[in-house]
């Protein structure tokens, strides 16, 4: 046993390269679908959580706590093995049939139990967290904002949509971004139910030619790059912080004024 000799060529070219590329794309596909599911469900959960009925709130709390406090691996296994089996026979047959239109480049099948269970499982899991982040963001909006809106004749729904939620989103944007990044990273666990995303493909390469170090390095680099890019993009796209983002021109003027003050102070001394 000598030192490690790295050979990325054997991992990036040929069949292993095809597998890795296919895995990259599958991770992106399942993350995008999972994010959409998570966003829609989070809004529904939030609505139930803050509805003016204790009973409805209790239902939302129960759902949120179950999904936040159980391992996502267990949830994947549940959706894939248990829940899918409860679907009507016709639906299951349709999902497992061959559908050429549902095969994306590099042989990624998106109408398949693995993909549906993974996207749905990620969506439900992250939705529970998103709903709680949004609620925290809402709670941080001062009560006076609601009173002002009510006193102007807005309905509660309008108050929520026009006044409270925009400020709540600005309050909790960073934690929300973190949850979407978590979703992307947690998609790796869907390899356990056979979803051929990047982690699954990395292991396949490893068992094919034993270049474990190179394969895992590439997989890690992929998660890191996508995570950094996504974090930057979502952060930049985020809503303005309350009070508005200071404009570049304003910042420049302020800097100039401060410089002038410093110069003045220096000449006084």
């Amino acid at each position, binding site marked *: 046993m000598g030192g490690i000799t790295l050979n990325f060529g054997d991992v990036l070219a040929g069949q292993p390269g095809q597998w890795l590329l296919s895995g990259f794309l599958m991770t992106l596909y399942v993350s995008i679908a999972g994010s959409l599911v998570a966003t829609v469900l989070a809004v529904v959960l939030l609505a139930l959580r803050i509805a003016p009925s204790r009973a409805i709130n209790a239902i939302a709390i129960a759902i949120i706590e179950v999904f936040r406090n159980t391992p996502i691996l267990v949830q994947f296994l549940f959706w894939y093995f248990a829940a899918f089996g409860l679907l009507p026979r016709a639906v299951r047959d349709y999902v497992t049939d061959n559908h050429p239109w549902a095969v994306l480049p590099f042989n990624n099948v998106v109408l398949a139990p693995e993909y549906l269970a993974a996207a749905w499982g990620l969506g439900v899991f992250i939705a529970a967290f998103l709903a709680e982040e949004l609620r925290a963001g809402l709670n941080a*909006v*001062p009560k*006076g*904002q609601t*009173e*002002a*809106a*009510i*006193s*102007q*004749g*807005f*309905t509660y729904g*309008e108050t929520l949509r*026009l*006044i409270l939620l*925009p*400020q709540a989103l*600005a309050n909790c944007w960073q934690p929300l971004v973190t949850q979407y990044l978590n979703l992307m990273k947690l998609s790796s666990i869907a390899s356990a139910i056979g979803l051929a995303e990047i982690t699954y493909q990395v292991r396949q390469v490893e068992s094919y030619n034993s270049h474990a170090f190179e394969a895992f390095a590439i997989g890690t680099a992929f998660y890191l790059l996508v995570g950094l890019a996504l974090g930057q993009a979502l952060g930049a796209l985020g*809503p*303005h912080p*309350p*009070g*508005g983002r200071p404009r570049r021109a304003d910042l420049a003027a302020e800097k100039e004024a401060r410089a002038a003050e410093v110069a003045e102070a220096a000449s006084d001394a």
Partner: protein
Amino acid sequence: MNPADAPLIVLKNLHKRYGSLHVLRGVDLEVARGEAIAIIGPSGSGKSTLIRLINRLETISEGEIFIDGMPTASFTGRRLRELRTEIGFVFQQFNLYGHLNALDNVSLALRKVRGLPRAKAEARAHELLERVGLADKARQYPAQLSGGQQQRVAIARALATDPKTVLFDEPTSALDPEMIGEVLAVMQELPKNGITILVVTHEMSFAREVADRVAFIDGGKILELEPPAQFFGAPSHPRTRRFLKQVLSPLSAAEP
């Protein structure tokens, strides 16, 4: 009676209870059109609760409020929201919408509650901002404005839907002293334009100079209701006299 002479707001035997706490214990008050009423009293006396009942930020426990001769205590839903657009409310903490600039703060209700097109709503908002001396601050966000400027935007916002009445809940209590004047100056213009104002305040000079009548409220009841000359010159109720002594010369009133 000529409807123009009929009082705009009539409070009849108004009560407010929070559980076992009886905050307002039977308030009667008639407010004429275009009148300015200052409401003063010790903290916890129920003066803020009183004006919050008029636009129903609080629920009425007992009694009736007539506005324009119409009993409103039973109003809910759409009728209540319509009533609220007829009554402006200005808060101690301004409560400007933090994510909107001054122009949008003033025009939002015009667009979304009154259904005006954006151009019309913004033209009206510009007019109002000019009226409170902030035409040049239309694009500024609340966090970029001083307290006095924020409160003036809040007054413009309260005026957006052309209310007959504007209620003020300690509008200058959160301001630095040098900014109180600019807000009071905007407020005293309103009665001149036929707008009825009820002002809960600690500004005795405003009560003295601008109010048509001053109400002293303590223990959940109006104990005294007089024009300022009478109110400050010859208060009849002993509690009024004690309160005025405390606020007008706090040091000599303090018991060692």
